[in-house]
Each structure stands twice: as C-alpha cells, then as structure tokens.
C-alpha cells in the first residue's frame, strides 16, 4: 500500500533560511493527520510541498506514490484548501463551481451544488462578500468535489470564530467518512485537532519534533510525579521527554511501551495538548542549545 504522504530528508530553503529541514516521515492512507506546530514551524511549507506549490530544496516527497507537481494526474488526486481559503473576489459562488467543473475532469457537480445549498450559500454572491467561514466552506466544497484521494488543509479554521470552527471541523469529519479520503490538516492549536485526528505530526522550527498515531502516543506517554530523582536514574526503556523539579519533587514526562513498575511514582495519563507541548518545548530547547554547544566545542 502506498503512503498518503512520504518524505525522506525533505528540506525547503528560502534564501539562506531553512523553513523545513531533514524531515522524514511516512503517513499511511486512510488517516486524519494533524500537523501541529507554532507559527513559522514550517507547516505551510510542508503542505505546499505536498501539493506541488513548492519544490523541495533537499530530499524527496511523494504523495500517494507520486511526486507532487509532476502533472495533472498528481493534481487530480489531491484536494487543497489553502490558508485563508482564497476565493476570487469578483466571481460568484456559482462561478467558482463552474471553474471547478471546467478545470477538473472528475468533478462531482451534483455533490457541489447540493453541498452549497445545504450550507446556505447564495449562488449569486460574490467572493468578496463571503465571510471567512463561508469562504472556507466554499473552498472545502471545491476541494472535495474534484473527488480527491487526499485532502490537504492548511490552517482551515485559523480565521474562523469558535462556532464556525466547530461546525467546519464537524462537517469535514462527516464528509471524510462518507467520501473515504485521507486528510492532512494543520493548525497551531492542538485543541482544534484533538477531536478529529488519529495521527499527529509536530513540527518545531522547521524540524520534525514528533510523529505518530494519536492513540499509541497517548498510551505510551505518562506523567510521573514522585520524590526528586535524576533523569539518569531512569530505566533504559523509559525515555524522559521532559523533566522538572520542584523542591523535593520531580515531574517527568516519559515515553515507554512497558508498564511503569517503580511504586514511588504517581502515574497519570497525559492529554494530547500536554504531550504536544512537552515535545514542542523540548524541540525549542534543543534548538536553543545548539549554538551554545558549538561555542563550547570551539
């Protein structure tokens, strides 16, 4: 089975600045993948690489087994919802649908018309007068009606108010199930993704900080609270993601597939948000420590 998204040592550079570097991951089909990271982490860059808007500066990327941007075949199989859901200001909703019908051989006209009607969009309304939520819904309709195998959404809810956010993600999930598409969507808010994703990719500062199945990740991470201890005293099968000490007490976030046997620990599960934040902090601290390390080496 081909992967929905597969990258090997993928990197993208703008001038001298690397927006994404050394990113290797493989995401199977049929997943809803959340791409999380702070602003400027390289999320948009990765997604633009995936839909062929950008070309890699290093490494390789393949989407559904094809190099993105290699032709109209690759375009036909991927639906893309760009950040801020751009729409033509002077074209009406109906004209946007006509564009989709003209430009996509596998266009599902009845679906598009039905969905636009269900959403209550006025066919004669121009793009300029649509609200952010309406634009996002129109863009999602356009992306779905071309019958893609993979749907890529770049911060689809960032510009929406909380209600529209919830509604958008809900309709997205319903449709994903009905139309059987794989999804990659990005957000800088984990709370947006928590409800909908079954796979997670965390980017920090252009590098991959964490990747994995949400359930597995949650199952294998624990918060340990107990008497003060050094990280080096931990068993080899427990990887400490984050450690913090307060007075005589240590709090560790560890990753392990084995049960925690040490009775001195109070073990509690982690929320997805805590987990992601721990990895983000670690990636940030690692990045900050590199220049210092270099200075010592000299």
């Amino acid at each position: 089975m081909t992967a929905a998204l597969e990258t090997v040592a993928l990197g993208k550079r703008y001038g001298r600045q690397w927006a994404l570097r050394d990113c290797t991951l493989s995401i199977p089909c049929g997943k809803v993948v959340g791409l999380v990271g702070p602003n400027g982490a390289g999320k948009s860059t990765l997604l633009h690489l995936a839909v062929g808007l950008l070309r890699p500066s290093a490494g390789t990327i393949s989407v559904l087994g094809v190099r993105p941007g290699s032709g109209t075949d690759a375009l036909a199989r991927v639906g893309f919802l760009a950040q801020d859901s751009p729409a033509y200001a002077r074209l009406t909703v109906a004209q946007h649908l006509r564009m989709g019908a003209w430009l996509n051989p596998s266009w599902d006209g009845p679906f598009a018309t039905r969905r636009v009607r269900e959403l209550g969009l006025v066919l004669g309304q121009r793009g300029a007068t649509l609200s952010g939520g309406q634009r996002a819904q129109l863009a999602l309709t356009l992306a779905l009606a071309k019958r893609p195998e993979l749907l890529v959404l770049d911060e689809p809810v960032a510009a929406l108010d909380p209600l529209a956010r919830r509604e958008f993600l809900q309709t997205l999930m319903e449709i994903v199930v009905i139309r059987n598409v794989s999804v990659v969507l990005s957000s800088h808010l984990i709370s947006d993704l928590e409800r909908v994703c079954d796979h997670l990719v965390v980017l920090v500062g252009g590098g991959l900080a964490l990747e994995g199945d949400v359930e597995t990740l949650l199952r294998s991470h624990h918060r340990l609270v107990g008497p003060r201890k050094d990280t080096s005293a931990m068993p080899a099968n427990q990887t400490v993601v984050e450690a913090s000490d307060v007075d005589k007490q240590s709090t560790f976030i560890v990753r392990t597939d084995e049960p925690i046997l040490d009775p001195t620990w109070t073990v509690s599960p982690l929320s997805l948000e805590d987990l992601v934040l721990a990895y983000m902090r670690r990636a940030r601290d690692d990045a900050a420590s590199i220049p210092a390390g270099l200075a010592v080496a000299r």
Partner: protein
Amino acid sequence: MIRFAWLQSRTQALTAAVLLGALAVVAAITGIQLSHLYSSFVASCHTGCELATTQFLSHDQFMDHALDLVALLAPALIGIFWGAPLLARELETGTYRLVWNQCVSRSRWLASKMAVVGLVSVSAATALTLTITWWYRALDRVGTNQYNVFDRRDIVPIAYAVFAFAAGALIGAVIRRTLPAMATTLGVYTFARIATTIWIRPHVLSPAHKTTAFNAGQVGITINGTANGPVAHIAAQGSGPPNSWTLSSHVVTNTGHVPTPAQLAAFAHQYCPGPGNTRIGGPHTCINQATKTFRLLVTYLPANKYWTLQWLESGIFLAAAIVATLGCYWWITRRIS
C-alpha cells in the same frame, strides 16, 4: 481553462468594447464631417487656399486633441490595467493557490490567461488604431508630416499595446503586488517608448542625404572672440523633402566637408568683423556671405520609408513582448516554487 480565463476577463473586455464602440460612433460622426469639409473646401481649392486649410485644420480641435491623447495613452492603459494585474492579482490575493490545485498545469493556466487577455488587448488596440488612423486621414494629408504622428497611427500602436501587456504581466508576476506592478509598468513602458524614440528609431534605417543652398532666414551665426581672432559658429536649420523625417542638418563647405576651424576663422575674419562674442541674425553681410560660401547637408528619412519603419518598430516591440512572455513562463513555472 480558456473558458475560465474568459470568465475572469469578460467584464473588462465588454467594458472596453462598449467604450471603444462609443468612441467609434463619435469618431464616425465627426470624421465624416471632416472628410466632407475636406472634399468640398480643401481638395477642390486651387488658389489662395491658406484660409480654407487653416479653417479645416482647426475645425474640430477638441476631437483632434482628445484622440491624440487616447492614441498616446491607450497602450500604456492596456499594460497598466490588463497586463499588470493579470498575474499580480492572483499572486497577491492568494487565488493562485486555489487555481493551481485544479487539474490544470501552471503553463496551461498561464498560456490561457495570456492568450485570452492578450487577444482582447490586441483586438482593442487594433480597433482603436483603425478608428484613429481613419479619423485623421484627411487632417494628416493636409497639415501633418507623417513622421510627426508616427507613434499614434497605423500599426505601431498595436505592437506598443502587446508589449505593454506582456511587460505588465511579467512585472506583475515578479512584484506580486497589483498597485506597485501597475506603477512600474507605466514607468517601464514610458521608458521603453522614449528610449526607442531617441536611441533606436533614428538609427534603424539608413538615411538619405542631400546638399542644398540655404537662404539668410535659415541661418544664425555666433562670433566668438578668441586669442587668434574671431571664429564663427554657423547654425543652419534645413529640412528634407516634404513628408520626410529630417534627422539632422549641418553646414558644409562647397566640397561637402564639415568646415575646419581654420576655415571658420578665415570666414569670420573676412566677413564678420566687429567686437568679439556677438550673435548675428537677419540681414547682414556676414549672413549673406555665409549663404554663398557654405552649403547645407540635410540627413533625412525619405517619405517612402514610413511603412518600413512602422514594421521595424512594431517588430522590435513584438520581439520584446515575446521575451517578456517567455519571462512570465519561466517565472511562473520555475521561480514561484
């Protein structure tokens, strides 16, 4: 994709068609009046036609000035309003991220947009220059050297418009912002036109020469007192045959050579005595003697080279438009990634 490109541009195309149609109607009404005037007063006039000609030329000064301005500005407007926003607006508003994910390659997207709006531009420019050239045909025959209105008649305005459109598109793709692209397009187009007029147009065809006598009214002499006595600078204004383009005129000796400083000093010493540093014009021995001593060499482009020059200049601008179009292709498919 052609249909979508047309959907995007049809409003501006139809607006332009309506404006051009209105202009054509006004031009037709006033133009027919003009040609009627021409055939009944100017063409049939045999003696003492000065008054009839003057009245004919100043009959419709409003349309004369208005159409002249339209002819001058139209290509620039096409570049600014159709060329520059063509790609810049898509890149600025982010809609390229929408349309580039439809099942259309970037090159086909670009080719369709350029073809549709380019064709609209060519049609508009052609209709306009036909209207304008037709309206002026009688006036041009009577009162104007064809080379004076070279850039506002016949085919060159079409080539200017095509160039302005393609250059605008490229500038828009590079700058990616509509308003700055429009301003830059105006600047680049104006520079290209001025540069061509000054540095290229006078030199693309080999000119003709003629050496003639000249009369006292055409000449001005400046005497400069130097340590070796007075030296004369003789400036004379000559012109080529009717409807030709006078490129330059020089005073030469009877043998056809540019006079040496020694010859000019000898001339001044002999015929133009008096205090140093004077400027002499009008009836004067010095002037009269100059007309006898020297001749006038006029370099000009003959009237029959007009169409060759029209095609040549059109070719230059079309070639530049092709280069700009290839630049768009390269920029859109290679640089924006």
